[in-house]
């Protein structure tokens, strides 16, 4: 029998230095020549859940208060919750150390497999973004973390801006898994002039902890 393996929709050309097996995924912790930023990290293996219920008011998820207003996000002990609309919340597990399993209630759906998920962080990332979308990341009115549902490189995405301050700026983006290949290509292409390089998960973990 073949050994069972989970494969990410994201394939980087750069060669891995350190990888780690996790729940049948081969997670790359570090790549050769990651450069000094900006960085692009594949997080497609991180659990993601859809929470939909007409009555979210009194609900908690992973012990955290769900954001009330659509467009707002909360990041607590590794769980990123973003309010999509009146009845829907999008949950990302950005911690990923001890793997989170989905709560049993029927209003949860595991959507980890539905999307490709990447983090784009480091200097000048918003100059990369403005080549790919008309969404306004630098709007002074909006305080990080905040949440967009809108087009990025022509396809609908969920995008959470976790930080807008210079070197530590960063976003986490998901779009339909099927678009993975082309989405990565267009982000790397747009980032070329700014030295954007694929990086391993450690780089991301280090960044997210620093926030």
């Amino acid at each position, binding site marked *: 029998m073949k050994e069972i393996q989970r494969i990410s929709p994201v394939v980087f050309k750069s060669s891995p230095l350190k990888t780690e097996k996790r729940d049948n995924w081969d997670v790359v912790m570090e790549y050769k020549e990651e450069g000094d930023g900006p960085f692009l990290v594949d997080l497609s293996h991180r659990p993601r859940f859809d929470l939909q219920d007409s009555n979210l008011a009194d609900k908690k998820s992973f012990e955290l208060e769900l954001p009330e207003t659509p467009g707002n996000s909360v990041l607590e002990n590794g769980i990123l919750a973003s309010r*999509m*609309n*009146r009845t829907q919340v999008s949950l990302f597990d950005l911690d990923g150390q001890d793997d989170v399993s989905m709560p049993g209630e029927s209003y949860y759906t595991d959507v980890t497999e539905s999307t490709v998920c990447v983090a784009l962080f480091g200097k000048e990332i918003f100059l990369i973004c403005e080549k790919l979308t008309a969404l306004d990341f630098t709007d002074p009115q909006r305080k990080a973390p905040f949440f967009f*549902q809108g087009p990025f490189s022509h396809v*609908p995405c969920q995008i959470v801006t976790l930080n807008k301050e210079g070197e530590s700026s960063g976003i986490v983006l998901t779009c339909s898994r099927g678009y993975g290949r082309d989405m990565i290509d267009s982000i790397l292409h747009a980032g070329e002039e700014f030295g954007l390089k694929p990086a391993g998960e450690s780089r991301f973990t280090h960044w997210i902890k620093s926030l």
Partner: protein
Amino acid sequence: MALTITCPICGKRNGYEFKFGGEEKGPRPDEKDLTPEAWCEYVHMNKCVAGVQEEWWFHKDGCGSWFKIHRDTTTNLEKEVKDENRVQKAKSGGQK
């Protein structure tokens, strides 16, 4: 012309993120003794207003909600219409 649509959930956005869903015509009529004329009126016929009309839009590339706006078809600009429950909707995240 640059259309922008104000989504009750995502706010003012590029109009190309949305899909137009027709003139506001009210709920689906009852099936019982619906004449071909009445059916056709509901399904196909439009007023084609040159001016402000109430209409449906879907946030295709965004939050995926259906909502109504008032738009001037001669300028493609949204019109603010006093509508308390629209404000309400916005607060509670619009109708789904």
